[in-house]
């Protein structure tokens, strides 16, 4: 269950009282695994804080939706506001963390997620603001693309969404810290070896020797 591993692993990064913006897909799923006793306030860039699960049929409100225009509910204590306020909040550094998907990430913490020249044309939406403004950026993605190529690159080859912003990378195979000096392996997914990670990762992993050494001894 790689998908499940990623979502559960993201959830370990939630600290009590955090304001978090979650990207669509696996990041959003991670909200299902928020640890007991930890209160996390979810932000949605279209103008809401502290939203909850989707409503029951018949109980939706046409003006209460997430950034994908899907119906949500507001929790008690939640707030709604306009998008200028929302992006002031995001760009101004008030949101503690964002978790997003990516096409590529690199050693410098740069991320490509919005464009594949000649192929994927969607516009950057709010991603650039979120990646610039949120205090902590976690990228959640599969370790390799469908051809088995590493998505953790020495240097991103696709157009960047933001340069040097990523703090942590969570894949289906491992967890990395992105530090000033480069990438550090922090955790392996169950059943995955350091040797396998080394082979599947294009980027240099600063501490890979320690991990491999530990595996051998």
């Amino acid at each position, binding site marked *: 269950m790689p998908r499940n591993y990623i979502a559960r692993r993201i959830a370990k990064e939630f600290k009590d009282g955090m304001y978090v913006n979650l990207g669509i897909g696996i990041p959003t799923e991670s909200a299902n695994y928020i640890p007991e006793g930890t209160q996390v306030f979810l932000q949605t860039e*279209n103008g809401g804080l502290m939203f909850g699960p989707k409503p029951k049929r018949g109980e939706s409100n046409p*003006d209460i939706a997430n*950034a994908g225009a899907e119906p949500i509910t507001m929790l008690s204590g939640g707030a709604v506001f306009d998008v200028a306020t929302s*992006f002031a909040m995001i760009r101004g550094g008030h949101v503690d963390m964002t978790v997003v998907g990516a096409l590529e990430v690199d050693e410098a913490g740069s991320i490509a997620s919005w464009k594949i020249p000649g192929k994927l*044309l969607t516009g950057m939406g*709010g991603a650039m603001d979120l990646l610039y403004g949120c205090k902590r950026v976690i990228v959640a993605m599969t370790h390799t693309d469908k051809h088995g190529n590493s998505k953790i690159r020495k240097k991103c080859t696709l157009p960047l969404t933001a340069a040097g912003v990523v703090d942590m990378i969570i894949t289906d195979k491992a967890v990395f810290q992105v530090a000033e000096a480069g990438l550090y392996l922090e955790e392996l997914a169950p059943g995955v070896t350091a040797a396998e990670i080394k082979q599947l990762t294009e980027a240099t992993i600063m501490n890979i020797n320690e991990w491999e050494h530990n595996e051998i001894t």
Partner: protein
Amino acid sequence: MAVQITTKEAVKKIIDKSSVMIGGFLGAAVPLKMIDEIAAAGIKDLTVISIGAGYRGGGVDIGKLVLNKQIIKYVTSHVGTDPNLIKQIVNEEVELELSPMGTFVERVRAGGAGLGAVVTPVGMGTEVEAMAEKITVDGKPYLLFKPIRADVAVIKAYRSDPLGNLQYQGMSNTNPIMATAADIVIAEVDEIVEVGEITCDQIGTPGIFVDYIIQGHSYAERKNVYEELWIATNKL
């Protein structure tokens, strides 16, 4: 001060080649009736300014104007929800002007607030640098973007009074910002109530910004439209 008119009268404010801001967010809180009327009127060569394209999959709300090929330029931050629009952009039938979402919103705000530009760090180190002017403030690099205004803004609010004071409910998203940034502002509302019924601290957009009010779907009708859409697309 605003005047209540019919949807048919309101749509006459928009002519071929007009620039039109449309409030809402990827299909949510959009002026559904006005969009239908713009589609029916067949006005051409529109520059549409909206934060993103219409509801995912295309063909509904703003997507109707895309299907009708009424748009020649799209000013936005995201078109990923409408495959028809992407096709028209790739085929160069529609010109695309992108900015990051927060920058887009500030550009519209600047247009309405009489500011000369938006100076933001967002997009530095990306292709966005080519979409703006680079400037340095206090030794740090920023991108300078020009304000955005439109001939007409068509926005959506919950209720209005006859003075054009608008009340929102839920996420007002782009609507209050766009209400400030066009020569003519048309607000589509669920309900028009008497002066005083919307109290001074419930007013999200004061009537000073609004030129015309039109009666949209009632709240119950609109809720129904969205419930059906959400059920059909497996979101509810």
